[in-house]
């Protein structure tokens, strides 16, 4: 048996010992322990070093409010720093290490920082290291960074995975203490859909740690019976190990720990699950956190919240000290004296700052020395508490102790009520912030509402549970009236004991002392929000649960204000730490966004294609062949194959929108800058779409298959945006137009078939029944033709400048079609090509694409000014007339070629007059796209150059300081290949 484990009592299983290790030392706990309770049971006091001064620290609490006992859990990539020992369930093989110490917990070199503590006061980093400034980056910042921070990350990717889930209910209950259990059971019995959250692994809250009775049975037994009944109700879901961390509009966020308590993680099991919970009504029954008292040396290991000591004794059967004193301003503190007496270790003294104590409370201490109207001035000791100095009517007295239970009052855990901007109010009777105005559909029960006794908690739960059920149309028969054991609740005002010699900590986690608060005030930071930021009070993992109110009270006294006048800081989610991975869920790495695959993807994979992400799509970028060592080699081959024979490219990813109805022509005239109402059936036309501000939004072809049957295409990347734009235009701007539209991108698999042999290949595939002669199917024709069991759509359009077609079939036939095209073209040397070859050929042909349609160009910039109709109105027409957009000095599309063959051009290079300095005032535009042209044998580029078209033949400088490029280039016509357009017409 461990040194401080009690022989009887508690909710631990003495038949199930559990081996674990702390700083490499093997220890044994019991099933039902937390890491903290197992450490207490083993008599371990010193568990960590503090953030700033590296002072020795022990366990303070028994719950998620723990500011001190932060440990590193796990090894290697699984290491998680800043894990609160009070929330870690013990499991076999648990391996934890203390943090913030070097070389060891007992001997920590940086603890010498305590000697320099005058330099480390609040705001020290703003002041102490100001001079000489030159040392900041070289010395001060690295030194501070090395010393700062809580714990350390593994530096490795998170090996665990996470998932998300969504649930809906009539009543969400946060916290399964007496109020929460009462609410859940009342509503559950009435048939309402209930979700009950509990951050602990066991339900019951304080019932697990207190000696109390409900309906004649011990509180823990009652909790177990309620849990058993809830488990039988199909309409109730219990989520234990689940912490609510935020209240959002209409939703509560919570994180469920699924495997953190398991020695061996089952395969496929996520570590944590992030819940989004939507409830008609939420009952916050999160209880209250006991408040420490600020006095000299109040951080010594062995000083603990009084209620936490009761948890260790009565829930975990672990004795937090053999000679403990109680320092209290509440009735509740006296119950800890009783708990120690029952455990066979009577306390050394009870010190209460109040004088009037009711007899029943006074009796809890039995015959131990009691000091009323007294305070603990100082706690004495090094790595563990050895004595306290008490000041009172008797003067000063030193009492030898190894532990001190502290009770300064209770802070209702109402952070969730403030997440949407609501503020709590200060209660002078409860000496606590209590909920005031509340968010819609949220109510607060029990201790969280400042109703601290067991009877009040049960009554609140029953009342609010019944109300929620009633609102859900499931009236509760008769709310249960549970009979609870009597208890008193009283608290006196005691936040701070002045005059001690030792450092008096307000915030243990951030090492903020009473002097830091005073200094903050002295320097003018008297707003509570300024105090927080200047001193870091209330930040970090505990979010000030134990420190905020004491800090406020000291600030209030120093500034001569009341606590309500001082105000409180507003809590923001998350209420407790949540792993970033939980927010990502499954969406990490390649699954960050969904991936879209074309019907021909599997075929392209078989061909060894290299893929590129284009929006969510994966597109074949090039198809390397054996022996090719460089992407450029593959791309050059693909371009040459197209220009000399025939190639196939999957263009299924381009957006396709079907438009129908009698008014499509009018609609298209308004959304495109060029005219479409004149487009005949059986024809396709290139269109340019402007934004309302006159800039180019997207381009593509629209084909007309029937009187009221159009197909509009968009670029791959803008498909969603254009669909949204068209829907907006129709639904908001011109609802009077009789137009119907829907995306059919997914319906069709589409392939470009390009090159002088493209017609021969298609004729082979379609057979002789289809006439593809230039007379029957000229440039810009479109039509639908039978192809095997289906109908194919054929478009004679070209992006490469060659004779080219696009053939589309229902996507289910896409895989078969590309295989048929490859088989049919074998004798023609058909070659698959990817997006790189596609880009090379469009640059050779001077077609604009994403690099030029970049949201900053108008049609005129792209040499497309003549497309802008003067005979009709359209979106963007008026704004495109602005003078600045028609300034001849605007950079305008040109072609560029190096004056020295072999020089590589790079997109992004800026244009400068030759001889001019490389400065912003000489900048005349930039290179948008470049490619090695296999047809010309040298690099070419497209660019936007001020007064570009006037300057053809001129030489300019293309300057690329980022990649060290600096070349003289000649301004040329952007159409490098076949400027007459003979090839495309065949």
């Amino acid at each position, binding site marked *: 048996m461990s040194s401080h484990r009690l022989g009887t009592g508690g909710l631990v299983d003495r038949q199930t010992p559990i081996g674990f290790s702390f700083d490499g030392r093997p220890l044994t706990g019991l099933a039902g322990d937390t890491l903290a309770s197992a450490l207490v049971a083993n008599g371990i006091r010193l568990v960590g070093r503090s953030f700033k001064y590296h002072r020795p620290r022990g366990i303070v609490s028994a719950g998620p409010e723990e500011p001190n006992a932060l440990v590193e859990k796990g090894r290697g990539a699984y290491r998680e720093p800043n894990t609160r020992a009070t929330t870690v369930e013990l499991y076999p093989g648990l391996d934890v290490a203390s943090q913030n110490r070097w070389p060891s917990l007992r001997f920590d070199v940086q603890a010498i920082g305590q000697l320099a503590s005058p330099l480390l006061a609040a705001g020290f980093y703003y002041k102490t290291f100001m001079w000489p400034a030159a040392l900041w980056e070289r010395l001060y910042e690295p030194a501070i960074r090395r010393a700062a921070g809580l714990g350390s990350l593994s530096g490795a990717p998170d090996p665990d995975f996470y998932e998300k889930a969504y649930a809906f209910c009539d009543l969400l209950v946060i916290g399964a203490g007496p109020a929460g259990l009462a609410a859940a059971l009342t509503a559950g019995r009435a048939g309402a859909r209930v979700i009950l959250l509990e951050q602990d692994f066991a339900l019951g809250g304080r019932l697990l740690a207190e000696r109390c009775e409900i309906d004649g049975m011990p509180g823990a037994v009652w909790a177990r019976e309620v849990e058993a009944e809830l488990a039988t109700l199909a309409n109730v879901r219990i989520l234990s190990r689940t912490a609510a961390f935020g209240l959002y509009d209409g939703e509560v966020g919570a994180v469920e720990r699924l495997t953190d308590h398991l020695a061996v993680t089952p395969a496929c099991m996520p570590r944590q699950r992030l819940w989004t919970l939507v409830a008609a009504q939420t009952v916050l029954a999160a209880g209250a956190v006991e408040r420490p008292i600020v006095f000299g040396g109040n951080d010594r290991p062995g000083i603990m919240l009084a209620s936490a000591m009761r948890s260790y004794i009565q829930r975990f059967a672990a004795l937090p000290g053999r000679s403990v004193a109680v320092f209290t301003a509440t009735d509740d503190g006296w119950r800890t004296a009783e708990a120690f007496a029952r455990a066979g270790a009577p306390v050394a003294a009870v010190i209460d700052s109040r004088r009037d104590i009711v007899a029943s409370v006074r009796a809890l201490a039995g015959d131990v020395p009691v000091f009323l109207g007294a305070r603990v001035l100082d706690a004495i000791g090094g790595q563990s508490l050895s004595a306290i100095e008490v000041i009172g009517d008797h003067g000063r007295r030193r009492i030898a102790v190894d532990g001190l239970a502290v009770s300064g009052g209770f802070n209702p855990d109402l952070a969730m009520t403030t997440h949407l901007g609501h503020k709590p109010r200060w209660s002078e009777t409860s000496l606590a912030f209590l909920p005031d105005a509340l968010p819609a559909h949220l109510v607060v029960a029990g201790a969280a509402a400042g109703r601290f006794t067991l009877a009040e908690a049960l009554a609140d739960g029953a009342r609010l549970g019944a109300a929620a059920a009633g609102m859900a149309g499931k009236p509760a028969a008769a709310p249960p009236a549970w009979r609870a054991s009597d208890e008193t609740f009283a608290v006196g005002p005691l936040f701070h004991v002045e005059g001690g010699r030792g450092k008096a900590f307000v915030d243990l986690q951030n090492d903020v002392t009473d002097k830091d608060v005073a200094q903050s005030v002295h320097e003018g930071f008297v707003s509570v929000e300024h105090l927080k930021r200047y001193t870091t009070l209330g930040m970090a993992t505990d979010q000030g649960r134990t420190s905020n109110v004491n800090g406020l009270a000291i600030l209030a006294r120093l500034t001569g204000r009341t606590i309500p006048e001082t105000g409180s800081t507003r809590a923001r989610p998350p209420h407790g730490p949540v792993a970033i991975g939980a927010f990502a869920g499954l969406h990490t790495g390649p699954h960050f966004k969904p991936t879209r695959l*074309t019907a021909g993807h599997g075929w392209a994979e078989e061909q060894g294609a290299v893929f590129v992400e284009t929006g969510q799509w994966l597109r074949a970028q090039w198809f390397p062949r054996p022996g090719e060592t460089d992407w450029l080699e593959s791309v050059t081959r693909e371009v040459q194959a197209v220009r000399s024979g025939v190639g196939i490219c999957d263009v299924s990813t381009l957006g396709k929108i079907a438009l129908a*109805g009698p008014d499509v022509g009018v609609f298209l005239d308004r959304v495109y800058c060029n005219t479409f109402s004149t487009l005949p059936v059986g024809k396709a036309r290139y269109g340019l779409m402007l934004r309302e501000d006159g800039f180019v939004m997207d381009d593509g072809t629209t084909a007309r298959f029937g009187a009221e049957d159009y197909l509009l295409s968009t670029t791959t990347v803008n498909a969603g945006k254009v669909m949204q734009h068209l829907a907006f235009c129709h639904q908001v701007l011109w609802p009077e137009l009789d137009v*119907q539209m829907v995306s*059919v991108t997914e319906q069709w698999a589409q392939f470009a078939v390009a090159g002088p042999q493209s017609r021969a290949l298609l004729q082979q595939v379609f057979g002789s029944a289809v006439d593809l002669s230039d007379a029957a199917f000229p440039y810009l024709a479109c039509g639908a033709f039978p192809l095997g069991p289906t109908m194919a759509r054929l478009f004679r359009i070209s992006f490469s400048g060659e004779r080219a077609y696009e053939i589309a079939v229902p996507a*289910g*036939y896409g*895989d078969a079609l590309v295989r048929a095209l490859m088989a049919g073209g074998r004798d023609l040397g058909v070659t698959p090509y990817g997006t790189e070859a596609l880009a090379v050929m469009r640059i050779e042909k001077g077609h604009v694409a994403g690099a030029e349609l970049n949201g900053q160009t108008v049609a005129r910039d792209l040499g497309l000014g003549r497309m802008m109709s003067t005979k009709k109105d359209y979106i963007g027409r008026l704004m495109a007339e602005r003078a600045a957009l028609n300034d001849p000095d605007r950079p305008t599309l040109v072609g560029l070629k190096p004056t020295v063959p072999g020089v590589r051009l790079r997109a992004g290079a800026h244009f400068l007059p030759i001889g001019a300095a490389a400065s912003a005032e000489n900048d005349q535009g930039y290179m948008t796209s470049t490619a090695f042209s296999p047809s010309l044998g040298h690099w070419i580029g497209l660019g936007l150059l001020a007064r570009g078209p006037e300057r053809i033949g001129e030489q300019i400088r293309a300057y690329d300081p980022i990649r060290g490029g600096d070349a003289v280039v000649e301004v040329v016509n952007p159409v490098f290949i076949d400027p007459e357009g003979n090839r495309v017409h065949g």
Partner: protein
Amino acid sequence: MADLVHRGGYAGLGRRVGSGDGVVAVEQAGLAAATVIARRGKAEAAAARLGGHLGLAVADAAKRAVSPAATVLGTGPGTWLVFGGEDPGFVAGLAAALAGLAAVIDQSDGQAVLHLSGARLPEALEKGVRIDLDPARFTPEDVAVTSIAHIGVTLWKIDAAPTFAVALPRSYAGSFRHWLEASAGPAGLAVVSD
């Protein structure tokens, strides 16, 4: 003349077939499907004609109407996603019946459809569906246009078992499978596709 073989949206994604103790997913390949959008001001007439043509009662609402031959899903004002069987003339028949009242646009190959069932289905759906699927709130008469794992889906309920159907753009089938395997895999998932 090419002889083309048809493939469903889930084909070629690998046959990972598990126990099926928790969830069974069966691909519904080869169904005819069309988006039907009423002409301006003709939603009621189109609903009536659509219902008359298919022999069921169609509402202009997010509701499902079903007959042995067809399923009509309200997916927006005056808009329906209509599934038929494997009859290749189904969409043309719809278009003819609705001439002048609605646009009928073939989506037979655009949608990948799975039927999902199994004892652990509700908990798997809960990991992706952000709407309330409680049997009292979402019935076989209801249709939802929503998203799962950032993928836009049309979701409906076939029976109270419950069996759900999920239709989504076919290019997302692989990513949907990833979500399904992660969400239903631990419970035991079987996927049946060609």
